[in-house]
């Protein structure tokens, strides 16, 4: 009962946020819409008892990535009258919109009238296990079975960061 209620509310908030992202004239409100979507999806994760995933969603996406978006938008500055109304993409928008509409209609038709399960529901005995140890459940395989992949990813990210710094410094010296 509570779960259904939360799902309906949060799903509506997520959709409203996503709509705000594309519809808002002001990029700051687009970013805020994205924030709303990310947070409501995080709440949905909590409802599914995936506390770890929810926390990471908020820390990484809402906390770090989106803050940087806002930072850039604010630094570049927003001029509300600036974007000209001249259409630069005469027909591409219509094609993309049409394809998206067909896909959405197809999916909606499948869910409404299709009589097969593409995604079988999780059996009910999976959930209670996950209640009190999602972090342990993620950490255990990460540091035993997949430790090599984990370390390789870490190294890759470090290299990327170091590379970004090196590039920035290189440019500055040239200029």
């Amino acid at each position, binding site marked *: 009962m509570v779960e259904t209620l939360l799902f309906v509310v949060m799903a509506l908030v997520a959709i409203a946020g996503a709509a705000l992202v594309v519809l808002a004239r*002001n990029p*700051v*409100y687009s970013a*805020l819409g994205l*924030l709303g979507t990310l947070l409501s999806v995080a709440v949905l994760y909590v409802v599914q008892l995936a*506390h*770890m995933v*929810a*926390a*990471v969603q*908020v*820390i990484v996406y*809402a*906390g*770090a990535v989106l*803050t*940087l978006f*806002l*930072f850039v938008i*604010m*630094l570049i500055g927003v001029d509300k009258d600036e974007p000209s109304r001249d259409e630069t993409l005469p027909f591409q928008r219509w094609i993309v919109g049409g394809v998206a509409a067909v896909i959405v209609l197809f999916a909606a038709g499948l869910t409404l009238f299709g009589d097969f399960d593409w995604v079988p529901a999780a059996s009910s005995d999976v959930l209670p296990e996950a209640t*009190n*140890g*999602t*972090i*342990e459940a993620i*950490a255990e395989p990460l540091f035993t079975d997949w430790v090599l992949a984990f370390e390789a990813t870490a190294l890759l990210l470090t290299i990327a960061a170091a590379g970004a710094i090196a590039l920035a410094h290189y440019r500055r010296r040239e200029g």
Partner: protein
Amino acid sequence: MGWVEWGVVVLRVLLVFVLLLGATIINVWAERKIVADMQSRIGPKRAGPWGILQTVADGLKLFFKESVTPRKVELGAYLLAPFLAVIPAFLIFMVIPFGAPFMIGDTEIALQGADLNAGLLFILAMSSMAVYAVVLAGWSSGSKYPLIGGVRATAQAISYEAAMGLAMVAVVMFTATQGPGGTLSLSEIVARQDGTWLGFIPQWNVFPQIVAFVIFMIAIVAETNRAPFDLVEAEQEIVGGFHTEYSGMRFAMFFLAEYINIFSMSALAATLFLGGWNGPTWEGTVPAFVSAILPTVWFLLKTYFIVFIFFWIRATLPRLRYDQLMSIGWKRLIPAALAWIVLSAISIGVRQFGLPWS
């Protein structure tokens, strides 16, 4: 869940709410009194005994004042920002245990808003949400000084959050050696700081993790935008910073959020490093209700010790320059925290598995 469980949850949330509001009333007054004392002034003394009702008077004044809305603000974000400041501030304290769990009948009642398995991550998430309020307030005010304050706030919060998180990592690593397996739950971290070393040193994380404690303290002062890291609202440079264009109740909400954040972060420091509510309860020698209430007293004493350090630092140190702020954050604190993590890991490894050549 039945009605009783729901009632307990609602009561706990209300208790945290009231505790935070009460603590804020005390904190604002305490800061003014302490700083006044350090500067050889008298401080508030008219409202109530020792001026203790000063905050209530100020709050009422702000409540009845007109909230002026300047003409050039971006209205939506401008109205949203104060709420975005207050909500994470309240939520951070929700996962901090502020007393020993006690029994009513058969149900154990934990003095904690919610005991999350991912408690520390929740705190990190909420403290990273707090920056939105400052950024949005600064941007939506449509004025240059708030905007500068907002940009400073973003850079500062991102920089010092890293140091804060890394200091927490060292504590979590150490906590894992104190019991079966690692944990991010704050109630478990507190429970593992019970007991003593050598019979008289309390088993608090601050002793083995002193470097992490220092880094954490510096980082939380910066995270709450307090002096000497208050470049976000530096009066002499950018008027009031992000809240320049706010007045009345909207300003009061930013003010409230700042003091709640000070209290929550101090409580977090007390929980992670000073043993939380651990302390002697003298069970049996004192009346039962005294030993039931003592853990909360210890918790509040430790928290107020850290809050006092906040005020002390504010009265002592001059504000940093912006480039100094960045260089301390990135060139000193983060490398120091990383080095400390490696050192702790090595010492934990040696204690668990012996020297590598033995």
